[in-house]
């Protein structure tokens, strides 16, 4: 008789279980539909002016470039603080060099950051605007703290003759830059959870958190693996490149240059090992339902990074001559990270049927042509400018680099191109205005 009661209970419970999960599943499916609809109505009705996949590609590439300079900014500061704690002349000298690196890098990180921000907002506007607005006040603080942090870095640079002051300013600066990175991390990470936005904003339907001071989600391993450890690694590689580039300049000293490279190779290796560990932990802690963990992108990124760590390990033997191969390995590795990062976003939004490939397109061809033309001209111009900087850097202090005939011609071309661009731009404007208004 007792058996019968157990059976009865079992049946009862399992029926309840099935019913319960049906309800739950129904709710989930229903909610997913709602979230999907919300995302689609948020997408700008103007549509994208060009094929979304192109925007996506440019976004991923420019983001990778952005991060390289973010990493040398943060890494330069972290390592300079370490170097400042050491008494030896070499370390003191290195610290000053790293502060200089960091100073220039922040400028480049900022200006390059504009590009992914543009492309991202064309195809992922629902994600970016929702997430930024959830933490709106922090989003403003991003600007304020970046400004203060960057000025502290300049103070560290101007006060580089004094170890203690320089150290103080560097610490202040890196704390703020890390915090700024945290804010942008939060905005990126929150955007991956559209199903929770309403709940976050309304605190479960009880209010509206319009003050913008809420921080609703962050992911420590993602933060570490996208910001902190790569910063050390990449700055280490940069130090190796320093040895390679300045090793030939007599007034710098071969000995110092190769010392920097050797230290750099050590930093690059340990940094990359930590980067690898944090990367694995990051992937392991991505919600399983997104289907990212076992994906080919995750596996590839892990394999590539393992190889990269291997190269970094071997590069310690002859840091100067392996600096370029290691740089290449790091570039490939960074691209794989950038792709995986984009895949995480694709996978997360696919749960709600959102796909950028279905983004409405209002094709327009003139402005992409403007961009293309500007980019081609711009690349030539950058090449000339960087090349001249490269030559100047190789010339010992006190000497003047005399440009060759080809370099002079390139210089003329660069002035010609930028002038031509301006004339075309104004000329088209005149034609349009005469046609429309006169």
């Amino acid at each position: 008789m007792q058996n019968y009661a157990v059976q009865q209970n079992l049946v009862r419970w399992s029926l309840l279980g099935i019913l319960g999960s049906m309800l739950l599943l129904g709710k989930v499916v229903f909610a997913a539909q709602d979230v999907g609809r919300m995302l689609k109505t948020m997408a700008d009705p103007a549509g994208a002016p060009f094929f979304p996949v192109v925007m996506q590609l440019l976004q991923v590439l420019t983001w990778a470039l952005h991060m390289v300079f973010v990493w040398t900014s943060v890494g330069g500061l972290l390592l300079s603080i370490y170097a400042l704690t050491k008494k030896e002349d070499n370390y003191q000298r290195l610290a000053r060099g790293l502060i200089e690196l960091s100073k220039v890098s922040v400028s480049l990180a900022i200006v390059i950051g504009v590009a992914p921000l543009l492309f991202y907002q064309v195809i992922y506007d629902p994600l970016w605007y929702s997430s930024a607005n959830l933490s709106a006040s922090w989003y403003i603080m991003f600007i304020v703290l970046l400004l203060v942090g960057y000025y502290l870095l300049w103070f560290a640079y101007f006060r580089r003759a004094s170890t203690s002051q320089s150290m103080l300013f560097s610490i202040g600066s890196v704390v703020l830059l890390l915090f700024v990175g945290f804010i942008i991390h939060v905005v990126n990470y929150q955007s991956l959870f559209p199903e929770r936005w309403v709940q976050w904003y309304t605190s479960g339907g009880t209010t509206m958190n319009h003050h913008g001071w809420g921080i609703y989600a962050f992911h420590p391993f993602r933060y570490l693996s996208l910001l902190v450890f790569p910063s050390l690694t990449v700055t280490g590689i940069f130090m190796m490149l320093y040895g390679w580039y300045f090793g030939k300049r007599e007034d710098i000293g071969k000995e110092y240059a190769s010392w920097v490279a050797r230290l750099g190779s050590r930093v690059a290796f340990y940094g990359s090992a930590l980067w690898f560990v944090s990367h694995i932990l990051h992937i392991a802690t991505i919600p399983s339902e997104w289907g990212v963990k076992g994906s080919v992108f995750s596996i590839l990124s892990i394999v590539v990074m393992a190889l990269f760590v291997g190269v970094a390990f071997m590069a310690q033997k002859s840091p100067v001559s392996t600096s370029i191969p290691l740089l290449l390995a790091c570039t490939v590795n960074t691209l794989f990270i950038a792709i995986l990062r984009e895949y995480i976003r694709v996978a997360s939004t696919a749960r709600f049927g959102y796909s950028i490939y279905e983004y409405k397109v209002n094709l327009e061809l003139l402005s992409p042509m403007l961009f293309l033309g500007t980019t081609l001209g711009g690349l030539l111009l950058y090449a000339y400018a960087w090349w001249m900087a490269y030559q100047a850097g190789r010339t010992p202090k006190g000497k003047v680099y005399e440009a060759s005939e080809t370099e002079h011609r390139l210089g003329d071309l660069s002035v010609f191109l930028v002038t031509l661009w301006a004339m075309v731009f104004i000329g088209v404007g005149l034609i349009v205005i005469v046609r429309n208004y006169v």
Partner: protein
Amino acid sequence: MEHLIGFYPMWYVPSVGSATVIAIIATIHVLASHTSVGASILLAYLATKAHRENQPQIYDYIKKYLLALLVFSYVSGSITGPGIWFSATVANPRGISALIHNFVWVWAAEWIWFVAEVTLVYILYYTLGRIDQKSWLRLAWTFAIGSWATMYIIVGILSFMLSPGHEKWFTTGNILDAFYNKNYFPHLFMRSAYMFAIAGTIGLVIASLMKKDISEKVYKDIVKTMSYWGIGGVILGSVFFGWYFSTLPERSIAMLTSIVPTWYYALIFALLLLVLAHFVLTAISPRFVKVHTAYPVYLLIFFLGIYPEEKIRETIRKPYIAGEFVWVNQVIAKDVPAKGIKSEVPTIQQAGFLAVNPFVPEGLKRITPENEIMAGKAIAILQCSGCHNVTGNSGLRPFAKKFEGMTDKNAVYNFLANYLTPENHPPYMPYFVGKDEELRALSAYVADLVSKGGRVSARIEVPAQNQARIDGR
């Protein structure tokens, strides 16, 4: 969730309003960017002069100026540039979205010049005296024209924010029609002229700081150059300002003459005279160049010139935030057939303003006697706070002042129901959108606010009776 409109979570800044946050960041940016674009041309000119007349001391001055540019203009300018964008994003996400979805490639082209500008300013600084003069000059001119190019681009986008210019853009959607607005050239020329006055002023500051390090003749030369360019900038800029004014849309002119306070004009006018007088004096005699006069003049440009200018620019755009189809309160109020954009007003009128917003708690979407005041506060924040402080009596056009003495909700309702209508609304303010009971809720909230002395907490609390938990964790 029958009807849904893609609104974003609202950000509300009590008292001064999010508009003021944008204005502050924008003012810093305008000062920094105009300084650097103006200076890039002035410095290229000076470098050419130094090379032609063989005056190497001028390079010392250029080097100092470049460092000042790097430390001041580039640090603050390159951060506040994205800063305007960041603040506009959280204050007006759908406005910035409209701009980006139209002009992404134009902006991307501008970005190419930004990168050129930032890398070149460093390269110029580090290579000065380390590469031959001819090569350096070429870099300097590339830098100058490239910097100016960023202005060519942003001016077109700013003009579109005010108005897409030609009416036909709504049907053709042609980017050229939108970009090259009627006021594009006057606007560009005006900024291009004034920037020399700004860069010239800081140029005088730098000159006076290094007076001891350079010969008398070079010093005079530099001061003269800065002063003449400055005088030209102020005069031409003012001429172009007149031209610019004449190309503004009618609604903007109406606003300039009605709601922009007269003392704004007085400030700007006084400032222009001051800057001009300063340059005239320094042109007459370099004795008048003093750090403690030139630098305050520069700061006054910030407070008396650019800040009012930014406020005016923001005001004459009203009630729109972009392209004469997105209102400041994020509602798309006009069809843009060329892009397949439909006005959202009919949907909102039919389904309700709160009901269509995904970020309004369920408990406020249907109005009941218990939640009426809170629903009204939500409407005020969502629909009016872009231009009004809706919870206090200070700061940005405070409701407490605009509705002074109106403590009866029926009185408020009767007033608004006849005033904020599609037919009667003033040109600077959108008409009310939403259902009748929502206008009643707004009125109840306003009356409650006024009767509580004009200040209430900005917090929205959904009464327990109205709370409906939302799915999810």
